[in-house]
């Protein structure tokens, strides 16, 4: 479903040195990234802040064009076929909403229906289904800005799935949520993956997400993939450790050491 082969993205950063002198420097946000995700997988994507997670997500969704390598999502090259790809993927940004701040939630959904050209009958069915499972009913008529973070996130997830995409990409979907909302979101994502066979890739800092949801974990640091395997395999790298937190902390600090 997702194929990444030697993908890289470098930026040229201009730094001001003194009044007129400027220095150009090439920064590799992501380099030589390769992995494959098969249909129906549920993959967690971990890494410390600034490791290249967001850059990867942006490349997979077609927001950012890679400077090297080859990427295919649902069989399409994201950077060339961005608009075609949009119909095949759902995207959720935990840090900001894709909904419209001033509009009632259900009007946001109407806008999305028109953007994806979903016909009215199918849209109504899908919305009924999603609002049933995500319990959106009580706040469908409220403007998005009045929703709590948990409500908003459920709205955002529904919005990403209204056009029934085979791939769902979530960037920190549980950030800032309380325990109850977090559990609801996790339960829902597990259901989507298990029942509809939706391929899910999520980034997170919350290791609970990983433990409860992801059969496979990928770790990125300094723009490079440092681990790719099952959760058990990740645990096995440091056998005497018990909690997953310790494992990951150890991996983070190990890779963060100067090379």
């Amino acid at each position, binding site marked *: 479903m997702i194929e990444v082969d030697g993908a890289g993205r470098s930026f040229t950063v201009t730094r001001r040195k003194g009044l007129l002198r400027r220095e150009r420097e090439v920064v590799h946000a992501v380099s030589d990234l390769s992995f494959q995700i098969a249909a129906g997988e549920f993959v967690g994507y971990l890494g410390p802040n600034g490791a290249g997670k967001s850059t990867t997500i942006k490349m997979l969704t077609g927001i950012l*064009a890679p400077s090297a390598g080859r990427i295919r999502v649902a069989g399409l090259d994201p950077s060339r076929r961005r608009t*075609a790809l949009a119909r095949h993927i759902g995207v959720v940004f935990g840090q*900001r909403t894709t909904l419209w701040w001033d509009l009632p939630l259900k009007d946001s959904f109407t806008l999305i229906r028109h953007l994806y050209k979903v016909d009215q009958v199918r849209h109504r069915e899908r919305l009924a289904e999603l609002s049933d499972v995500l319990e959106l009913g009580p706040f469908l008529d409220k403007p998005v800005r009045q929703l709590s973070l948990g409500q908003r996130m459920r709205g955002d997830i529904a919005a990403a799935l209204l056009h029934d995409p085979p791939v769902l990409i979530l960037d920190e979907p549980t950030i800032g949520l309380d325990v109850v909302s977090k559990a609801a979101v996790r339960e829902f994502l597990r259901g989507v993956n298990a029942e509809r066979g939706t391929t899910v890739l999520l980034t997170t800092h919350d290791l609970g997400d990983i433990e409860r949801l992801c059969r496979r974990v990928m770790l990125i640091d300094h723009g490079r993939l440092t681990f790719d395997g099952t959760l058990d395999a990740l645990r096995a790298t440091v056998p005497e450790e018990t909690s997953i937190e310790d494992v990951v902390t150890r991996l983070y600090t190990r890779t963060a050491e100067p090379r």
Partner: protein
Amino acid sequence: MGEALGLARSYVLLAATWVRAAAQYPLSMAMLTIGSFVVTCLDAAAIVVIFVHTETLGGFSLPEVMFLYGTAGVSFALADMLFGNVDKLGQHVRAGTFDTMLIRPVSPFVQMAVDRFAFQRVGRVLQAAIVLAVALARLHVPWQRAWMIPVMVLCGIVLFTAMWTLGGALQFLLTEAPEIANAFTYGGGQLTQYPLSVYGGELVRAVTFIVPLAFVNWQPALYVLDRPDPFGLPYWLRFAGPVAAVTLACAAGWAWRAGLRRYRSTGS
């Protein structure tokens, strides 16, 4: 062509959703429509006050100036209502909402243009249309020349839209200075309210040959009103509006695409 129709259809459907949402508060919507009508009446009032003190301005009578004001006003207000939001690009980039537009299957240009579609701006269109109607009633333009009026309004819409698009595209480079573009878009609106004969020769040549705002109303109006060009520019320029409009639109489209390409390779 099919693609353009598809985009137009998306635009209309999205705009309708915004209007329906705003119509939940009919009183507020009516107030804002009337308000936008009154605000633009001030420009017209300024012209009337000027003509309290003089018979002609830059060699043009009150109905002639109202004709110029009305045609440019209708073009400007329609372009602003339909596409004026494109100049909010800097805000969208800073807020991260531009990225969310890129994950949708519709051109980000259309999404930005229609974002918070404000039907109440129709008040300004109406105001300019009334001024134009009053001017036409007093001018007695012969039918042989009147055909130019719809052509010039249409070209004006394209020219102003292209200006907004250029302003938006500029913000791919300067995300931190959005208001720079205002000087050209709103400045263009202000410029075309008066006969260009009041401005200096160099300015007029600049808005004829560089930023072709003279074709919004001035050049075609010289034809409609059958007046000699005070700056002695060639007669055929009066018919060059469509060429200017298409040229500027192409330039704007190119700039927008280049800006978008740059954005997608730098991510900021």
